[in-house]
Each structure stands twice: as structure tokens, then as C-alpha cells.
């Protein structure tokens, strides 16, 4: 059941936090911060779970899909300020990178904006102590009923989709994922795990994304144009994330075009990046893994470590500098020096939080107030580029096709009715599609499979030799279901009776068939006998001493009708168990006599 999730329409602004109740367990999926708000609206509203106090007893576990702040930004708030001491799960790269971003974010919010109702550095540390890191495709037992498994999601380093399973019911939460591999990450992948529900963002289903290549082209073009006219390009980046990808891109481009302008990288960046990418090499794509053996993808030929003194060097250059939102440190220093020249350019590859210089210039502000009442006039070109790798309408269809869920749940923040989308998904995959709004609860009925043991003898008896079971042609089998203690067993009726100490009742039926036959009773009987012998070759047909014919266990006796000697009465007697044989038998007899007559 979705608890609370809101995404800005088509933008990278939003917050994810979903609560699922499955098989009696409560799981929180992501705990994001809404970057668009400055007040309490940026945190998820935990009063949905409980009005007062700690969440520990209400949640069985918390799962974080990746390190973006709109998915993990409120985690320390939830665990330390609201209160939660249970397990928190995320992948290894996420666990390594989350605290760095949270701390960066905290610094901006508290130090720069002077906020008070915010988590502290110590809280971040305490929160991370509660985190258990998981590997891809590793089934993690949260308790004896709840298990989770992470799948590769692409998108950013360490991003995962999670399968949550309780007994025979399961849910897959996609988080943010991407279906096309890029320069340093692979594409999302999941097996045909057939979960009861797949939970995903509806933004994906309604966007048709511009190709990665065209985004990259735009970036290269802007950098190239600036450098060609002798200008300098500043690219503020976080320590991890976009930086590595853009570096690989520029390196390739510089090599191809034989360009000479220098590219620099803040020293801190290379070391950290190399460290993390080496650590998490299995999380990158095939190409990088292959070349890593021969050459470290993050050791560049054209990209050199930056020194502060280079800032004043004449001529064109490109610099990647931290931090990413131009809110402090080296990137801000460089910006101040280069902002006044219209030949220069600053490219912001990601969202900037309110209050930062990055945010201001992205909103068109051209005059900034710096410390000491100094005004900085921004003449340099400002470019905002989005590189985030998200799936789109086509991608979500691919994912649903891979996982084969029974239901699809799309979470969205918009109020608009999405009837077309719902129909499209429902028809393409024959599944139910739900689209609850913020605060709405959706209940999905599942059809859990109940495993039953079948006795070997029954299986042998009921199976057709040589033929495999065909799911399209179900066969009815006869047996008895015994539910005893915690086991469910399917056994043959005889065995069931034996186990229960009961005796089987026998029911014997009799019917009279009138046939026209002027011959003697004995002759009629013999005729029937011969006919049956030819037609029912596999059955045992015997003449009994008392003049009765016995076909398997069915008895046939012939007598003459008192009113009409040419009419014979066949007395047919059979037990309940041989209904089918009786039917065939009667048909044969009637047929034989019709043939005779004609």
C-alpha cells in the first residue's frame, strides 16, 4: 500500500517514501527529502504510521534504493529525530556514498541557510550504524518470514531495485532505474520473479526521453564552443556521480578531435572517485570492467589534477570542481574569478538546492551578493544540463515484461486522472494497474499459491506415461486432500481411507436395457459377448457359470420380457467406480443391436 510519495511533474525534484504492508510485515521503501520545500513539508509525514513517537515497533525494515537525496535525504531525520532502531538495508556503494552526500547537504542547509530543525553530523553517523549492506541477487532474511533481494537498477552507482517477499507474496520496488546502458553503468535487470506487485514511478510511463547521446552531444558542443573562442568552462560536480561519466566523455572527445585545451579535475575528486569505482567495479558496465584490467578508466590522459594557481592562467580550459552546487569551496572560488567574462561558461549538471549560488544563477539571477557586501556580476554563460539516466515509457514496459508481475502500481504526485496509461498497461500485460495519489491507500488482493505434497503412488497413477503436464490443458485428477498439523498432502482415496481407518462403501447400480432380439437368451448373450470381445479388446470379458457376462466388474444378465418374447431385457449391474466403462459398454451393446437390425 502506498503511503506517501510525491514527484514534481517531469522534473528531478520530488521525494520518494512508500510504505508497504505485506503478509503482516511493514516495510518502508526509501526515505527521501523534498528538495523544493524549506519547511517541514520536505520530510515525509510519518504521522501516517503513528501519531506519537518512535517507528521501531511499526516497521519491520527500511530499504533505501540509491544515494540521491530525494530517496535517502530524510533517513537520518526518520531514524534519529523521529526514532527508528530497526534494520535499514541498502547496497554497498549506497552505504558508502550516502553519508557523504547527507553531510554535504546538511552543511548547506545548516551552515549556509542557518536552519535549526535539521539532523546533525552525529545523527548521520548514528543512522548509518543501523545500516546493513546487501549484495546483488543475495536473499537477505530480515526475519523468519520476511526476505529481501536487490537487483541492478543502473541509474547511478549502487542503485538497486528490491524484491520483498513474505511467504508466497512478493513486491518489487523499482526505485529509480534505467533500461539503456551508458558510458559507465549497465542497464537494469530483473528475472521473471512474477511478483504480486511492481511499484514504480508514473513519471516514467509518461515521458519519452531524449537519448543519452543527444544530451552528451549538447554538453560537448557547449564545451567545444566555449573553448574554441578562448573561454573557460567550469563544471561544478559532486565527488561522485556525474563527474566520472562526464570525464570519460570529454576524454573520448578530446582524443577524437585532437584538442589541446587543458582539462582539470579537483584533486580530491580523482582520488575519491578512483577509490570508490575500484571498490565497486562490479557495479559498472561491461566496457569499463574490460578496460579496467588494461587501463584504469579513471586515469585520464587529457585530464590533469587542478591547482588553485591555474585559475588565473590565460587561455581556454575546462575544470571539474567540487562542490556541485557552487555553495562553497573550490568551485565557488573559481566561479567568482571567471563570472565576469562573457566568453566563459558554467555548466551545472544537476539540481541545486535553494540558497546556493547554483540555484540562484539557474533561476536567471545575474547579480549576486557575496560576503562583505560585494556584488558579483555574472556575465558568463550559464547552462543547466540534465544527465540523469531514467527509464521512460518504453522502459517501464520493458521492465514489466521482464518481471511479469500480477499487478502494477504507479506512484505519482499529479492529481490528473491517468486513465489511458492504466488501460495501456492493463491491456498490454493483462495485469491490474493502480495509480493512487498522495496519501491514498491501495489494497491489492493476491492469489497466493498453496503448496501441497502429492504421494508418489497417486502421481504415478494419475500421470499419463510419456506426456508432460501441459499448463494449457489442465487434467482433473481424483484424490483426497489431508490437512494435518502443518502439512497438506494429496493421496489416493484408498490410502486416505486406510489412514483414517475407514472402510470404503461400495455402491452398486442396476439398470434394465430393452433390446429387440428374437433369438434365445443364450444366443443373445453370446452375440453380445462376441461383439464386446472385438470392440473392448483391453477389457476382461468372461462367461460366468450362472450365465452372467462379466466385463471387468460389470455384470450383464439376459432375460426375456414377459410380454414379448422378441424383446430381451439386459440387466446391467455396476459399481460407482466404473461409471465410464458402463457408459462405453451400453453404447456398444446398443450399437451392436442396431447394426443387427439394419
Amino acid at each position: 500500500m502506498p503511503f506517501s510519495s510525491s514527484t514534481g511533474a517531469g522534473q528531478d525534484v520530488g521525494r520518494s517514501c512508500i510504505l508497504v504492508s505485506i503478509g503482516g510485515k511493514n516495510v518502508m521503501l526509501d526515505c527521501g527529502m523534498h528538495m523544493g520545500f524549506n519547511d517541514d513539508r520536505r520530510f515525509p509525514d510519518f504521522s501516517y504510521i503513528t501519531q506519537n513517537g518512535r517507528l521501531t515497533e511499526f516497521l519491520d525494515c527500511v530499504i533505501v534504493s540509491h544515494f540521491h537525496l530525494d530517496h535517502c535525504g530524510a533517513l537520518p531525520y526518520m531514524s534519529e529525530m523521529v526514532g527508528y532502531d530497526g534494520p535499514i538495508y541498502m547496497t554497498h556503494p549506497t552505504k558508502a556514498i550516502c553519508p557523504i552526500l547527507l553531510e554535504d547537504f546538511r552543511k548547506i542547509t545548516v551552515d549556509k541557510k542557518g536552519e535549526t530543525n535539521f539532523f546533525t553530523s552525529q545523527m548521520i553517523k548514528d543512522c548509518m550504524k543501523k545500516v546493513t549492506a546487501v549484495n546483488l541477487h543475495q536473499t537477505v532474511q530480515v526475519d523468519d518470514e520476511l526476505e529481501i533481494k536487490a537487483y541492478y537498477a543502473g541509474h547511478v552507482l549502487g542503485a538497486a531495485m528490491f524484491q520483498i517477499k513474505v511467504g508466497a507474496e512478493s513486491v518489487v520496488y523499482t526505485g529509480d532505474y534505467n533500461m539503456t546502458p551508458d558510458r559507465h553503468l549497465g542497464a537494469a535487470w530483473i528475472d521473471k520473479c512474477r511478483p504480486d506487485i511492481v511499484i514504480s514511478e508514473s513519471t516514467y510511463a509518461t515521458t519519452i526521453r531524449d537519448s543519452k547521446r543527444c544530451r552528451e552531444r549538447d554538453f560537448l558542443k557547449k564545451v567545444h564552443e566555449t573553448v574554441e573562442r578562448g573561454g573557460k568552462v567550469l563544471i561544478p560536480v559532486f565527488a561522485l556521480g556525474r563527474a566520472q561519466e562526464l570525464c570519460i566523455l570529454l576524454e573520448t572527445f578530446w582524443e577524437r578531435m585532437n584538442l589541446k585545451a587543458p582539462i582539470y579535475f579537483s584533486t580530491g575528486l580523482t582520488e575519491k572517485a578512483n577509490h570508490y569505482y575500484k571498490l565497486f567495479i562490479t557495479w559498472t558496465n561491461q566496457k569499463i570492467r574490460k578496460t579496467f584490467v588494461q587501463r584504469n578508466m579513471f586515469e585520464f590522459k587529457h585530464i590533469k589534477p587542478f591547482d588553485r594557481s591555474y585559475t588565473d592562467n590565460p587561455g581556454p580550459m575546462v575544470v571539474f570542481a567540487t562542490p556541485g552546487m557552487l555553495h562553497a569551496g573550490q568551485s565557488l572560488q573559481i566561479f567568482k574569478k571567471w563570472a565576469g567574462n562573457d566568453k566563459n561558461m558554467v555548466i551545472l549538471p544537476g539540481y541545486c538546492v535553494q540558497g546556493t549560488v547554483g540555484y540562484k544563477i539557474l533561476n536567471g539571477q545575474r547579480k549576486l551578493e557575496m560576503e562583505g557586501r560585494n556584488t558579483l556580476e555574472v556575465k558568463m554563460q550559464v547552462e543547466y544540463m540534465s544527465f540523469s539516466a531514467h527509464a521512460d515509457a518504453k522502459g517501464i514496459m520493458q521492465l514489466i515484461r521482464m518481471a511479469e508481475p500480477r499487478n502494477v502500481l504507479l506512484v505519482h504526485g499529479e492529481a490528473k486522472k491517468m486513465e489511458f496509461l492504466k488501460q495501456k498497461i492493463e491491456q498490454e500485460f493483462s495485469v491490474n494497474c493502480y495509480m493512487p495519489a498522495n496519501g491514498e491507500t491501495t489494497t491489492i488482493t493476491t492469489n497466493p499459491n498453496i503448496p501441497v505434497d502429492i504421494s508418489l503412488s497417486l502421481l504415478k497413477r494419475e500421470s499419463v506415461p510419456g506426456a508432460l503436464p501441459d499448463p494449457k490443458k489442465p487434467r482433473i485428477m481424483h484424490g483426497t486432500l489431508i490437512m494435518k498439523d502443518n502439512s497438506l498432502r494429496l493421496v489416493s482415496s484408498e490410502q486416505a481411507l486406510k489412514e483414517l481407518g475407514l472402510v470404503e462403501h461400495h455402491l452398486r447400480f442396476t439398470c434394465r436395457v430393452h433390446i429387440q432380439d428374437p433369438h434365445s437368451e443364450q444366443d443373445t448373450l453370446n452375440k453380445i459377448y462376441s461383439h464386446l470381445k472385438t470392440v473392448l479388446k483391453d477389457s476382461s470379458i468372461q462367461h460366468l457359470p450362472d450365465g452372467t457376462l462379466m466385463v471387468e466388474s460389470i455384470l450383464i444378465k439376459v432375460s426375456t420380457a414377459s410380454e414379448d418374447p422378441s424383446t430381451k431385457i439386459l440387466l446391467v449391474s455396476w459399481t460407482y467406480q466404473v461409471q465410464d466403462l458402463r457408459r462405453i459398454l451400453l453404447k456398444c451393446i446398443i450399437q451392436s443391436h442396431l447394426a443387427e437390425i439394419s
Partner: protein
Amino acid sequence: MEEEEEDRLSNDELMDDWLIESIKLYNNLHAFELQDPTKVIEWTGEKSICVAGFKSGGRSEILELTLPQKLCAKEDQGLCPERDFKMEHGGFSERPIYCLKHVQGTRLLVSSGPPDNSLQIWQIGVDDSDVIRLLNCINNEEQNNHWSKIATSAAGSPCVLHGTHVKNLQVTEIESTKNVFLPGIASVDLVSSLEFLSKDAFLLCSVRGQMWLMDMRQQKVVAAQDVCALPAEDFYWCMGVERRQPDLDAVPCRVAKLSSTGYIFVSDVRNLAKHMCQTKVSIPSPVAENKFMNVSWAPALDNNIAVSGFSGSIEIYNITSWHSTDTEACPMFVHKGHTVLEDRDKGEIPLVTAHTWHPWKPRTVLSAATDGSLQVWEWR
């Protein structure tokens, strides 16, 4: 798997090469992948277009998409990171959509496609939902199993001009489904293109290249152009009308006629009998039918024409450089994006199915191809 991986890597390199080259060729370039290919790109507003599937056997989707912010920004384009199309509305059609027209000023669409010549009327966004719903059907007085060509007019009450053959053309009022005008032109040829020039006049072109300008007020054909005197082959023709101003009574307007062998003739609409200029454009090979043939005028540039449907590329020509049909005209620009940019199974070269110009951004074109690609590009 190894070989596949190798192929993908070298394919990546080829794409990278083209992309780097494209930096010099294009100001803007966007590449998208639709779930199903479309052969219509119809503007429904300044910032929205409609596309629709045309596969046979099964449902087709009609989608209304809003243009990425970046393409709509008139200034400060650099501050818009949004490069994606957004699906605003969608609908399902039981038949493939071969022709789709929007009725200006309304939320109505008119479509046609096999198996017969009836029209389907759709409403976009009923009851504030995201559905494009089928409202009604309009039948031609003469029913047959060809698909109708369409032109719409919103002047007065929304009307649609439609028909399969020149002789069965009719103008039907959409709401009442009553015929308001029957041109009654006695030609058995199939219709190729239809276009309203004003609320009372429309231009039509047959597959053999004959054109008629009809004035509904005067109830007669006021100008006509005969079949071209070219070597008799199985030519197919289509036309594109220049639309520079909303009020066409004031400004002379031109029409370009394109043949399946690459001939283009330009005439003034008010003087159809004469050709103003002509040329032959280079095409890989003549097309067997006019399935995807398209010729159009740039609304924000002078004398620029775009031609597509013969291959995976779109050619832009400046007609002032045309002299005669003896020398082949050289395109000003060729867009090859559809043949290079997409990952695809080897051997399948896509064919451009449709193209349209951006209403006010000069040199900006939207194009679609048989592999489902949709590209928006602005050349330098």
C-alpha cells in the same frame, strides 16, 4: 554474446563519430524512441503534437505529446534542462492510422485508415482525464475499401474535407455529420493531398499530379493544373502548400508538387496553369507508392522546402537555386539522423515516414521513421 558485444561497441564508435560531426552541423538535436512508428506528426497546439501507430492487425495508439521545454523556450534556452517529450493524452484505435488531422481551435482530431474510407472523430482530454476518446464516425456517401485523405477547417463550424477519389470528395460538418458541400469534380483518380487555403477555398492534388483549386462560395473550380508532360511511368504525386501567414487571402501562396521519381514543380496557387520553377531531386530509387512521400514548406524561412519518404534521410532545398529538371538540385542540408542514431538489428535501414516544421523556430524540423524513432533537429 562476445560477437554481439563487439558489434555493439563498434556501433557505439560509429555513433560517436557521427555525433561529434553533428556538433558542427546542428544547433540542436534530439532523438526519441516511440513504442510504435508513426506516419503522422500533427500539431495540436503551439507546443504539442499528435502521433499515431499504423500497424495492421491489433490496436494502434494515438498520443498527444508536449514538446520538451528546451524546444519551446524563446530565450534563456540554456537554463532549461528539460529535453523530454511528455505524453499528455492517449487513445486506442482499432484501425491503423494513416491520416490524422487536428481541427484548429478545438480539441478534435479526425483520422482515417484501412479497412475502409470512413473517418473517425476523436476528442482529446475528455473530463480532465488523459484519454483521447472516439466520438463519432463519418461515412463517405460512396463507401469503398480505400482510406480517405483529410483536410480540416475550423472557420465557422468545424468541417472536414475528405474522400478517396476526386469524384467522391465531400465537405462534412463534424458536429452534425451533414454534408455541406460536394465538389463534384468528375475524375476517377485517387486523391493524394488536400488542403484548405481559407475558409472557402481548398486545393486538391490527385495521385497523377492533377490539381484543382475549388472555391466553395462560388461553387466552382477557379484554377486547375494538368498532369505534367513527363515520360509516362507509374508516377505518384503529392503536394505541399506554403503557409506563411494565417490570412491567406492577402499573401500569394505557393504549392509544390512532388513525384515518386523525384520531380518537383512549384506553382502560384492563383495561377496553377503555370510552373514557377521546377527541378529533379536525387533519390536512391523511385518509390512504388506514395506511402511516405512528403513535401513541405518552411513556415519561418523563405523559399525552403523539405522532402522525405524516399530513404532514411530528409533533404532541405532552397528553391531559388532551381533552374530546370535537367540538372539535379543539390540539397542545402541532409538530415541523416534516422540512419545513424538508433540501436537496431542490422540490415534494417529505416525509412522516414513523416516530417513537419516547427511553426516559428527557423530551421527546426520534427521527423519520424519506420523504426519508431522521432527526432527534432535544427541545422546550423
